[in-house]
């Protein structure tokens, strides 16, 4: 054993080891071309070392020549693979130069085999020299000048490597340029120099290409190993962060997933499976191979997401519906982001989602009930408000603004609680409110408001205090339309009954007056004319007969009018029925209700429950009652305390007595006798027919009518009616 053997063997085994390592790396990762070429370079280096060692040991010239030819192969390999390695690892070097080197070298090797004398024209002998303490053989012979061709290729290798190293350096990868580019350049330059010196026999020494190759291999090996170590560290770091991430996504309440563009679920965390109702993430992944169809509650949902990703790049907190394993749908808030491939198209999606089904359902339920409430309030024209007595916070429902004629954006003030009521309603409201606050008693009133836009409206207001929560709730209902139609009804009824029956008396008397006043006026004028003419002396007497004729004519006319009116009145014959008396009174009072309320009259009724039925014409008896009530109201116009007392009672077994009393000034004794005479009146604009008609109606029924003063003050009008005694 000597140093030569040791060095070449070491170089060979180092090359072999590195070749094996990097070949394995390439096998694991087929795109790692630089590892493959480095492996082949290392292999070629091992072969170089073997051939060189062998050549040092050969005994004959023939042996050397054969060995030298094969040596060309491994040398070719080391050159081609170095060029390729540099090209792939440094991503530098001119391609044409690389091809030229490889081609030229390949041609020379081919020529060496074709022409045995390509390198040495003649190999004369082997010289034995001492090298590193060993006897080694070096060839002696005549060099063929054509072998310069292979040396040109070696020069081109130097140019290629240096050029690649420089451009790598310029690119900024200084370390790579220095370690790999630099070492390669130095080794190639040194190796080529050494080989040329040995080949041309300028210095007698063996070929040592493999040693310089080994320098490159070691440098690259060092660099690649360093990367491997770094990669190892990265793997360690990654594993650590992955552990952290895993605990995050496994413990997360949100579903975290990765899916293919087509919709296949590629990764899912336990929450994904749990939310979607799968047994495990694996179950979910196995089932959701085309989640686009299985997971989306609707096809539009997915299309919308894809469109938004296309347009906006990603989607955040998008609320949509997913389908669970059991087919039910649930609301989720989805955030999804594509991971794009080298072509810029989404390669797959990363995303997470949160189960918002309960929140969404609560929101929907709230919205539904809000809409229902609003709709019902709108239909019912009802509103409501809440007043917090401690904070004086006021909350109005939407329809309340409508009822009060205010803009929906209006901010109600505390003053607004009572501001809209008319003066009289305001008093009622304030009183009710005070009582509610003090005693918690609910209230229920029909009030009038003047709305923000100036309309008078009737509202039904109900209120209730909630002392425990220091709140008052008020309910409003717009009853304007109802009230109006009620009023109209009442008015209509009044017109049909009161007006039709009682006021016709006034109408008849009024037209009667008109018809009589015409002839009376004419008579008066004519009489006046006669007087004037007579006063002027006998000269104008010839006109008198004509005037007197007119007077007679007009007087007859007046008589005719009275006769006609009487006949009209007589036309309606009374119709007698068997009637209970109290309902008759009730009906008359109902008709008078509005007038009573309007005049703030207190009504007292003392109706005997066991009255006998009477014989009467209901319409005419109504006329009597209404007339008496109207008179009573007129009598009480000027007194502050207005009390109307209506009584019914039996007088003996056969007579029903009905009386209407007032709290007016009463009737002086002197007037009582003439009260029922026609045209007797105490009223400014009355005709004095009312009581006369009443008397005639009562007498028509076989009854009597009379008056007296109440001991407590005021007048009492009474009439009697005979009880029913059979038809």
């Amino acid at each position, binding site marked *: 054993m000597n140093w030569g053997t040791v060095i070449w063997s070491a170089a060979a085994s180092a090359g072999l080891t590195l070749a094996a390592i990097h070949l394995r790396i390439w096998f694991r990762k087929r795109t790692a071309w630089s590892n493959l070429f480095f492996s082949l370079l290392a292999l070629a280096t091992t072969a170089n070392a073997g051939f060189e060692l062998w050549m040092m040991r050969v005994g004959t010239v023939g042996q050397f020549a054969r060995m030298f030819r094969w040596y060309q192969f491994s040398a070719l390999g080391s050159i081609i693979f170095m060029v390729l390695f540099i090209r792939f690892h440094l991503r530098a070097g001119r391609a044409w130069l690389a091809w030229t080197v490889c081609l030229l070298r390949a041609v020379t090797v081919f020529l060496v085999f074709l022409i045995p004398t390509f390198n040495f024209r003649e190999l004369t002998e082997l010289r034995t020299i001492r090298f590193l303490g060993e006897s080694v053989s070096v060839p002696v012979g005549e060099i063929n000048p054509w072998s310069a061709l292979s040396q040109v290729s070696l020069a081109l290798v130097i140019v290629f490597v240096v050029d690649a190293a420089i451009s790598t350096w310029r690119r900024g990868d200084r370390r790579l340029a220095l370690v790999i580019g630099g070492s390669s350049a130095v080794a190639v330059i040194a190796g080529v120099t050494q080989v040329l010196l040995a080949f041309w026999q300028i210095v007698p020494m063996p070929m040592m290409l493999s040693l310089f190759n080994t320098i490159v291999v070691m440098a690259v090996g060092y660099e690649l190993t360093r990367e491997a170590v770094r990669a190892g560290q990265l793997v360690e770091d990654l594993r650590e962060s992955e552990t952290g991430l895993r605990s995050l996504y496994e413990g997360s309440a949100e579903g975290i997933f990765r899916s293919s563009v087509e919709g296949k679920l590629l990764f899912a965390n336990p929450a994904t499976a749990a939310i979607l109702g799968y047994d495990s993430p694996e179950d979910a992944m196995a089932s959701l191979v085309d989640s686009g169809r299985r997971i989306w509650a609707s096809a539009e949902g997915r299309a919308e997401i894809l469109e938004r990703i296309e347009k906006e790049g990603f989607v955040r907190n998008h609320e949509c519906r997913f389908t669970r394993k059991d087919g039910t749908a649930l609301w989720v808030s989805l955030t999804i982001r594509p991971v794009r491939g080298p072509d810029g198209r989404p390669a797959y999606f990363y995303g997470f989602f949160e189960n918002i089904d309960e929140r969404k359902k609560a929101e929907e339920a709230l919205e539904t009930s809000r809409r229902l409430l609003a709709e019902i309030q709108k239909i019912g024209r009802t509103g409501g408000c809440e007043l917090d007595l401690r904070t004086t916070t006021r909350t109005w429902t939407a329809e309340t603004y409508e009822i009060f004629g205010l803009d929906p954006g209006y901010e109600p003030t505390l003053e607004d609680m009572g501001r809209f009521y008319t003066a009289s309603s305001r008093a009622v409201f304030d009183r009710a409110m005070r009582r509610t606050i003090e005693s918690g008693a609910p209230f229920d009133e029909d009030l009038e408001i003047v709305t923000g836009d100036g309309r008078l409206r009737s509202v039904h207001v109900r209120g209730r205090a909630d002392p425990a929560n220091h709140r008052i709730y008020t309910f409003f209902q717009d009853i304007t339309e109802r009230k109006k139609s009620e009023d109209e009804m009442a008015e209509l009824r009044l017109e049909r009954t009161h007006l039709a029956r009682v006021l016709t008396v006034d109408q008849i008397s*009024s037209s009667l*007056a*008109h*018809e*009589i*006043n*015409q*002839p*009376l*006026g*004419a*008579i*008066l*004028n*004519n009489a*006046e*004319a006669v007087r*004037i*003419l007579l006063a*002027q002396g006998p000269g*104008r007497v010839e*006109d008198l007969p004509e*005037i007197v004729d*007119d007077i007679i*004519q*007009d007087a007859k*006319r007046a008589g005719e009018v009275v006769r006609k009116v009487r006949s009209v009145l007589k036309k309606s014959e009374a119709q007698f029925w068997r009637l209970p008396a109290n309902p008759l009174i009730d009906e008359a009072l109902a008709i008078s209700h509005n007038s009573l309320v309007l005049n703030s009259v207190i009504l007292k009724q003392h109706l005997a429950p066991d009255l006998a039925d009477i014989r009467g014409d209901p319409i005419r008896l109504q006329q009597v009652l209404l007339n008496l009530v109207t008179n009573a109201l007129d009598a009480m116009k000027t007194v502050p305390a207005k009390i109307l007392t209506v009584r019914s009672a039996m007088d003996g077994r056969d007579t029903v007595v009905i009386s209407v009393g007032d709290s007016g000034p009463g009737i002086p004794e002197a007037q009582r006798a003439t009260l029922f005479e026609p045209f007797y009146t105490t009223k400014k*604009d009355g005709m004095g027919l009312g009581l006369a008609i009443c008397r005639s109606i009562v007498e028509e029924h076989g009854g009597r009518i009379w008056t007296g003063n109440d001991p407590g003050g005021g007048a009492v009008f009474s009439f009697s009616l005979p009880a029913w005694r059979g038809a």
Partner: protein
Amino acid sequence: MTISALRYWIVDDDLGFGRSLKRMLNARGIPAEYFGSAQSFLESVPHDQSGYAVVDVHMPVCDGFGLMRKMRELRYGMPVIVITGHAGIEEQDRAIEEGAIGFLQKPFSEGSLMELVLKQEAKKSRS
């Protein structure tokens, strides 16, 4: 100008009344004309005539108030006294509203008519 020189234009559908009023005024020596309808008055009396119109409220086709409106439209200058057989306070109010200088309820005395006219004349001479 004395009162007797004023002319009266009586418009009343009631022939008996209208004729008797004209007769009474004529007996006093006061010129008066009678028309049975608003139409015949408007056709016969030009708007620039002076005097007093005595107009009944209740007439068929065109009543007293209708006639007063037409007189205003046609620029009649004469004052109007409204007469009626009815007893309504409303009619009186309305007559004054429509611009009548007075309102008389039939039957009325000669004196009450003259009183209205004298008041109006006094007002005219003051202004």
